[in-house]
């Protein structure tokens, strides 16, 4: 027990890095994903195809590769080549990647809304934008909560990939102690930390689902 208390310090610090990565990614990837979903279903075939290609690229290559590319290779790309420090580089990779997954979830949610809802809104005089904002998207939220919950839990664990940019997230901190002290206890403690974080997320989503249960469809 004393040993566990001893190693808590660095593990909590690592958790901080993990949570920061998680929060920033969620805050940026959700709106970007929504924008991509709306462009993907837009009337302009060119835009739709472009977004489709983007989603294919982002889902079709490993997140770790994307992160390594942005950190190591982007500086040498003409015109857009900039050198990003480790945290921003990781954030850019995570946001671009997760936005692609969120976009597909949102698109599925939007397209599951009955055509009658659009017609009902149209005959009342709502524009397309008003129909989306007031009628379609609020109903979409209820339907996508389970897959978004999935994706969010995956994200919190995926943040451990940032170790490749030598950032001290929870898992890397634990591994450091394991290698130093020749004991696997830090892994168990780290697992408990991850479980605690996903438990909070699970509760959060259960709360949202309950709130949306006030209406049936």
């Amino acid at each position, binding site marked *: 027990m004393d040993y566990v208390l001893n190693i808590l310090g660095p593990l909590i610090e690592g958790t901080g890095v993990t949570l920061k990565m998680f929060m920033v990614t969620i805050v940026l990837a959700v709106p970007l994903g929504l924008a991509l979903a709306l462009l993907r279903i837009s009337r302009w075939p060119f835009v739709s195809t472009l977004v489709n290609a983007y989603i294919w690229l982002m889902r079709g290559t490993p997140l770790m590769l994307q992160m390594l590319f942005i950190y190591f290779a982007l500086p040498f790309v003409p015109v857009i080549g900039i050198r990003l420090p480790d945290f921003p580089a990781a954030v850019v990779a995570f946001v671009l990647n997760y936005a692609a997954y969120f976009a597909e979830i949102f698109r599925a949610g939007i397209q599951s809304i*009955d055509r*009658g*809802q659009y*017609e*009902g*809104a*149209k*005959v*009342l*005089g*709502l*524009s397309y934008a*008003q129909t989306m904002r*007031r*009628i379609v998207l*609020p*109903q979409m939220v*209820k339907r996508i909560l389970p897959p978004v919950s999935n994706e969010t839990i995956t994200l919190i664990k995926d943040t451990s990939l940032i170790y490749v940019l030598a950032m001290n997230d929870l898992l890397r901190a634990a591994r450091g102690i394991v290698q130093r002290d020749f004991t696997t206890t830090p892994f168990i403690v780290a697992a408990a930390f991850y479980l605690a974080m996903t438990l909070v997320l699970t509760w959060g989503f259960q709360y949202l689902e309950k709130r949306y249960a*006030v*209406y*049936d*469809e």
Partner: protein
Amino acid sequence: MPSTMSEAMATSMINAENIHKRFGAVEVLKGVSLQISKGEVIAVIGPSGSGKSTFLRCLNHLETIDSGRIEIEGAVLASTDANGHCHYAPDAEVRQICRKMGMVFQHFNLFPHLTVLQNIIEAPITVKGMKREEIIPVAEELLRKVGLFPKRDSYPARLSGGQKQRVAIARALAMEPDIMLFDEPTSALDPELTGEVLRAMRQLADEHMTMLVVTHEMGFAREVAGKVLFMDHGEIIEARPAAELFANPEHPRTRAFLDNML
């Protein structure tokens, strides 16, 4: 006769001329024309697949026409040039024109995430920019009128079909339309629930609302409609005062249809 001309134009609520519409290879409307004057109630009857719902949906731009001309209260929604190309008014204008028409659907199309009251006040607030405190009394009055004030804060899923349809009527009326379009408003209802919806519609007719009603309710068509159109295979076969058409159908197809229905 210029004065009677302008008078006729002023009171013509919908003027549809020679509407053609096809879905792929199927021609669903083969040159349908209709004029409806202020305060007139017209019922459209006919077998399913006759194009009557499509025709109604063309009038408020839920479907686009291939050729023909549609005027709503004198404003041109769609017209066809000499080369046979159909032109619609610009989007904003189309929306403006179509706002003169309210519509009630077979499947209600209420917004499930909003309460009854919220369903009614949504469009007046979002589209007309009305304030909540302005529109809520209006909405409550409409709910009383259709007998659903106690359901004010219920969600649509908690209502019966007849109640849903009455909310849908109230919701359409909240936008203060000049014309009401009904697309088989009782076809999705259990038989014992059609009465309450037809009563609400009859009340509207008594208040001289201009109404175009696609329906299978022959009783309603006979008693409430001034004129009845019989459509079959994308054409209007007969258009006559209700009493005449039911008592003495001219066309064999009308007769066959009525015999089948009654």
